[in-house]
């Protein structure tokens, strides 16, 4: 295997190993070079299996490329590069190493040709990304990170069990179409894998790790986080479960419910986290429909989403970096001191809202058209509603409350040049893809026979967007728009952040009041057990002390006797 055929994750992992040895410019150079070099080699590489190893008797294919995975490979390289540029001013080894490892793990996951490699990178994704949350180095971020890690590891465990059962039932390690139609063990396995992917994909009720942890990460860490985990899950769905009808409904719910939360959420990065779920919903719907057009649309949307969602997170990160504030209630009027950031943010907002000539439009419309063509009318209406809603919260609310609205009195300046450069790259890509959609279309897994720019589409989309903007203006002028308030909005996480502890507390309280004796007994028992172990195994315990020779020999004789008796009778 020549160096150009190394799996992409190797470059990232090696780079992460190299970082601690370097300082200053050297480190930045390595950081920048890795996605470029790795991306270049990926671009040069033909499709197929590039690396096979045998581990514990399993034939593993940790590096397998085809059109689907290569597309994700490209966008991950782009995202990694942009995010690295954005984070270039950061002098935190922990974040730098974690982000490289994280990006590498995402690449490893999408290039896994077999389920075991997929599992390994699945867990690596969880373990490496959590450090980007911890890196905020606040108590709040730490707790959030722990919750995030627990849920992610749970996803990994489900995947592991699913994979083991699936491999046992099907006899193949290959990561290929799985579907939910199996029966028996394979059926259970396919469901377990489905749920594992669903957790990472932020399915409804399984989504709270995302809205919980992403906004708690560092300004730069969130950029990495937003790019990889959910997209890896989308990739896994696109490979394992295309055409699964259930996904259409799940996806439709995912597009709709987060926008309600986004409207009333105060933390602007959390607003973006909710809109991330909403965007992933479009992809999930596309995969669920499963036709060539729909899957193309889903995958293309994933590609675009990485870039424009990254751009939005970057602009909010810049605001947080410069002002130290991120709540809509505390911001406003920043367009005066951060005009460039404002414009870049608006480009991102236009992209996510799917304005014609911006990247969101060329991919989202594919999914919508596919839903319509296949007769999913209700779903189509939900998606349409969600599109309007996206514009509402991500397209208008984010720029409006951060940069316009009432003047908060904050006076700051533009963010560091590297941040601006990163945002500019992303913005240019957003516009470029919007103008020349063939750039992305040529990469898609299925052949593309779709033109986004016809009058019908453009007009319909513009009408939808302008009139939802009109709704915003109208509501705002009438004072009906909910003001930004410092608050926490209850979500499913309430179950494990409030109900579960409270329940536990209640039960423990019951124990406390009703049966102190029981607790004392348990306590006494535990300490007795501890003492017991200690007396026997502790340094002065019978098991650990040096025995006199005589006793040793005596027991030898006894054991011989026991042995003789056992063997004779």
């Amino acid at each position, binding site marked *: 295997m020549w160096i150009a055929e190394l799996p992409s994750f190797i470059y990232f992992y090696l780079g992460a190993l190299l970082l601690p040895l370097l300082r200053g410019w050297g480190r930045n150079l390595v950081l920048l070079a890795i996605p470029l070099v790795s991306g270049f080699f990926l671009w040069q590489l033909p499709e197929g299996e590039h690396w096979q190893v045998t581990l514990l008797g399993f034939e593993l294919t940790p590096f397998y490329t085809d059109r689907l995975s290569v597309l994700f490979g490209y966008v991950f390289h782009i995202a990694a590069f942009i995010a690295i540029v954005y984070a270039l001013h950061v002098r935190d080894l922990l974040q730098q190493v974690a982000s490289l490892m994280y990006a590498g793990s995402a690449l490893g996951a999408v290039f896994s040709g077999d389920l075991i490699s997929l599992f390994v990178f699945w867990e690596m994704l969880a373990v490496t990304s959590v450090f980007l949350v911890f890196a905020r180095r606040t108590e*709040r971020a730490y*707790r959030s990170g*722990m919750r995030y890690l627990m849920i992610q590891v749970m996803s990994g465990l489900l995947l592991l069990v699913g994979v083991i059962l699936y491999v046992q039932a099907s006899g193949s390690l290959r990561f290929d179409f799985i579907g939910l139609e199996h029966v028996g063990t394979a059926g259970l396995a396919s469901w377990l894998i489905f749920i594992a992917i669903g957790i990472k994909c932020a399915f409804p009720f399984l989504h709270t790790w995302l809205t919980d942890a992403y906004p708690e990460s560092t300004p730069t860490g969130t950029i990495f986080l937003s790019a990889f985990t959910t997209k890896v899950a989308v990739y896994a769905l696109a490979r394992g479960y295309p055409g699964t009808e259930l996904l259409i409904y799940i996806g439709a719910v995912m597009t709709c419910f987060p*926008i*309600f*939360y986004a*409207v*009333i959420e105060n933390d602007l990065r959390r607003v973006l986290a909710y809109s991330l779920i909403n965007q992933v919903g479009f992809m999930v719907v596309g995969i669920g429909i499963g036709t060539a057009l729909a899957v193309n649309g889903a995958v293309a949307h994933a590609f675009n989403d990485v870039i424009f969602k990254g751009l939005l997170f970057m602009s909010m990160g810049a605001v947080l970096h410069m002002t130290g504030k991120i709540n809509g209630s505390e911001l406003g*009027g920043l*367009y*005066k*001191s951060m*005009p460039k950031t404002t414009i870049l943010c608006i480009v991102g907002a236009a992209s996510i809202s799917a304005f014609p000539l911006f990247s969101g439009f060329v991919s989202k419309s594919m999914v919508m*058209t596919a839903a*319509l*063509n296949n007769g999913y009318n209700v779903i*189509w*209406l939900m998606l*349409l*509603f969600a599109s*309007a*809603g996206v514009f*509402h919260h991500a397209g208008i609310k984010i720029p409006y409350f951060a940069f*316009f609205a009432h*003047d908060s009195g904050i*006076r700051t300046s533009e963010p560091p040049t590297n941040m601006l450069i990163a945002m500019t790259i992303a913005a240019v890509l957003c516009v470029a893809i919007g103008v020349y959609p063939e750039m992305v279309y040529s990469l898609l897994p299925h052949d593309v026979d779709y033109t986004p720019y016809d*009058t*019908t589409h453009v*007009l*319909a989309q*513009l*009408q*939808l*967007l*302008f*009139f*939802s903007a*009109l*709704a915003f*203006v*109208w*509501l705002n002028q009438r004072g*009906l*728009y*909910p003001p930004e308030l410092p*608050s*926490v*909005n*209850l*979500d499913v996480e309430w179950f494990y952040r*409030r109900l579960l*502890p*409270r329940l*536990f*507390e209640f039960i*423990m309280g019951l124990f*406390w009041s009703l049966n102190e004796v029981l*607790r*004392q007994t348990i*306590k006494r028992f535990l300490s007795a057990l501890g003492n017991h172990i200690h007396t026997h195994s502790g340094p002065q315990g019978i098991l650990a002390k040096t025995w006199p020779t005589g006793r040793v020999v005596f027991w030898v004789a006894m054991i011989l006797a026991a042995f003789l008796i056992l063997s004779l009778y």
Partner: protein
Amino acid sequence: MMNSDSPGFFDKPANVKRVLRVFYACCALLLIMDVVIHRHVVHPWETLIGFYPLYGFLGCVVLVLLAKVMRKVLMRDEDFYDHQPRVVDLVTDKKDGAESEASDVDR
């Protein structure tokens, strides 16, 4: 670069009004185009004049109003999750709580 102390473009109500007027004009134009331009449709509703504008407008109004209702149910203090009685206090013997090894499950 704008001087940060001078009033910004949007600080003048006249400017805001002007922007809004342009915006309203755009909306009207788009609505008229619906009549003018012939379009191919898949779903019967799409033929209705003003379907997209109406759907976009109503959708958003409903979205915001529903969200406001939701807020009544869901909104809590910002530090809602931060102030919980630590379970450790309940698990441990309050008399010698400091020495207990019970784990803080809430963490």
